């Protein structure tokens, strides 16, 4: 008991995050094995993991670094395509675990490289300007992927921006990325277990980064750039660090996402997807990692649960979004909530609970 109490509050907080993910995983596994969980829910497990990783990684840019990025789907698509191309060519020859892990790593590395390439010019800007330029880069990546043709034969890779016939493949060759149609006939590899492991790795890296020296430097840039610069913090370095890590995890999430379906097309990674992830981050609370996890899960599952409502589905979804936003952020509601909580705590059970807690603390 004492050991737990002596933990730093941040460590304690982080442990709650890991615990939450693990409990969710165990509960789902029990439900699956008991045959209670329906197909619809089972099908959503991997996308949930994907969006959690995306939301947490975007929160690093938006919440911790304090720069609004609207191009997260672009990094996701770079990761998705590079990982999926690797998986198509050689992943199937290796054991699934090794192939999948390598695909995820390749996706992360490529997205990280793109993060660096884009970050260097973009991070010179601030605020709205940065948001708009990231939006533009996201669209550029999507349009490039939409027009690219990749083939593979005994001579190696063939690229073209024109059409399939321009690839010049020999007989053994196969078209891997077919322009707008993208990748088809991919063997699926993503599982909920793999997704959960990726979520935990993401949390581990990002939570530790936040509490580390580098993390404090990143947050100091967010809080007061001039003061940070005056204390000798290398602004470009830390900004780039946060941006690249964020991009790289988005790429890994992209691979997880891509290998969950047998097709992959660039069309999916438009700015709507970026905004969707941003909605998760904002609703969960900017800078609040646990909020991102919960918001991504709840908001992803919600539209599917509303299927019964048929045509009113998206309308209700929007109303729920607005209601949640007001509940979480409006000053009046926040005041009312704390009032309500203190009222409860003054009366009855909660009071006894607090009393007990106080007593145990005194002991």
């Amino acid at each position, binding site marked *: 008991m004492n050991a737990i109490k002596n933990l730093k509050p941040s460590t304690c907080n982080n442990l709650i995050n890991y615990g939450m993910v693990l409990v969710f995983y165990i509960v789902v596994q029990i439900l699956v094995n008991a045959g209670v969980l329906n197909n619809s829910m089972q099908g959503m497990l991997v996308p949930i993991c994907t969006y959690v990783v995306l939301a947490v990684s975007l929160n690093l840019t938006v919440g911790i670094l304090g720069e609004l990025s609207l191009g997260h789907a672009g990094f996701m698509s770079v990761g998705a395509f590079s990982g999926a191309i690797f998986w198509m060519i050689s992943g199937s020859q290796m054991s699934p675990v090794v192939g999948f892990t390598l695909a995820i790593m390749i996706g992360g590395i490529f997205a990280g490289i793109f993060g660096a390439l884009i970050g260097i010019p973009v991070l010179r800007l601030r605020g709205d300007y940065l948001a708009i330029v990231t939006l533009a880069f996201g669209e550029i990546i999507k349009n490039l992927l939409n027009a690219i043709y990749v083939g593979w034969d005994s001579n190696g890779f063939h690229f073209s921006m024109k059409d399939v016939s321009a690839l010049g493949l020999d007989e053994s060759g196969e078209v891997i990325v077919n322009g707008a149609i993208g990748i088809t006939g991919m063997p699926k590899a993503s599982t909920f277990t793999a997704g959960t492991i990726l979520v935990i790795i993401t949390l581990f890296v990002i939570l530790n980064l936040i509490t580390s020296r580098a993390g404090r430097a990143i947050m100091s840039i967010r809080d007061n750039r001039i003061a940070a610069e005056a204390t000798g913090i290398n602004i470009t370095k830390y900004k780039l660090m946060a941006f690249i890590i964020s991009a790289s995890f988005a790429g890994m999430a992209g691979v997880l996402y891509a290998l969950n379906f*047998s097709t992959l097309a660039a069309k999916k990674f438009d700015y709507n997807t970026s905004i969707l992830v941003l909605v998760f981050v904002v609703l969960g609370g900017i800078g609040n990692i646990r909020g991102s996890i919960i918001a991504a*899960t709840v908001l992803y599952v919600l539209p599917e649960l509303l*299927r019964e409502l048929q045509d009113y589905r998206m309308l209700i979804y929007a109303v729920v979004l607005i209601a949640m936003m007001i509940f979480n952020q409006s000053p009046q509601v926040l005041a009312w909530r704390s009032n309500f909580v203190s009222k409860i705590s003054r009366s009855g059970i*909660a009071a006894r609970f607090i009393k007990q807690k106080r007593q145990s603390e005194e002991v």
Partner: protein
Amino acid sequence: MKKALSMVLAAAMAFGCVACGSTGNSKESTANSNTIKIGSIGPLTGGAAIYGNAVKNGAQLAVDEINAKGGLQFSLRVEDDENDVEKSINAYNSLKDWGMQVLLGTVTTQPCLAVAPETAQDNIFLLTPSASAPEIVAEDNAFQVCFTDPNLGTAAAEYIADHNLATKIAIIYDSSEAYSSGVHDNFKQAAAEKGLEVLADEAFTSDNKTDFSVQVQKAKNSGAELVFLPIYYNEANLIIQEMNKQGYDAAIFGCDGLDGLLTIKGADTSLFEDVMLLTPFAADSSDELTQNFVAKYKETYGDTPNQFAADAYDGVYAIWTACEQAGVTADMDASDVCDKLKEAMTQITLNGLTGEGMKWEASGEVNKTPKAVKIVNGAYVSME
């Protein structure tokens, strides 16, 4: 304290989600156990909604007719996928929870490419009314009512060449759309073989489809006599308006994606006169089947049916015919139904709205002759 409370609330919410998700379906599956459950997936909302809704209406009409006959009874449930791969898979999973035995869908190509392998794995019979990529029917449980993209592109080139419509051709297509680039690639290939000259080959993408002045200008300058538009009708409308503005008077030829031009609200339909399109269905056709269908459709939905509605109608009848042939009953599970229907599909012949004597190959592709129609006085008229 506040944190603990929020944790408890969040946990309760998560459990609530899981619990209501799993109880919801068990109620459904016990009801109507004596009907064969046909599921369908299509865009009921969003940019491609007209196709999904047409399929929904057409299929419902066929199901009602079949149920009125007595004998085998069908129940139909259509789920929305917004023309998105991920949502399509979600819709497929929730249909599986409903107890779907046959899948009539999905309506659009890209989602179908993702759903088809899932159905192969689960061994659920798939008949898509309108998703046209050849990869969809790669597995033996999948069949198509419509033509595949390559067939459509080739057929269009052959039609233009054989009927001497033009020799100098310009193409404007959507390179970000699987359907459009699929037809485009094959059209170009077939055009070269047929001795047609493609003078201008202009692309646009889904992000860049409001201003077509550049593409039309290039087509005009190339001196093409015919503009081939393997695209959807909304963009075609803009292109045709732009051609009119620039005074470019060339023939216009499109594929089934142009079906819907006449339904655009507020568009100047006089510009669409003489637009030709290759589509298996013309609502003005004089045969009894089509006329009955169009009359009923108009009565029920207050709209002239398009090709997608007709494809769906034929799809339901194909399933019905195959079920009768194979002796499928409502109490079989989806996998048994699939095994039986796979075999029966290749044996049946269907006289449908979209073709006389339709037959299916074991590969899943349909065998029928494409029809070309022309817009005259604001209505489709069969060519030839």
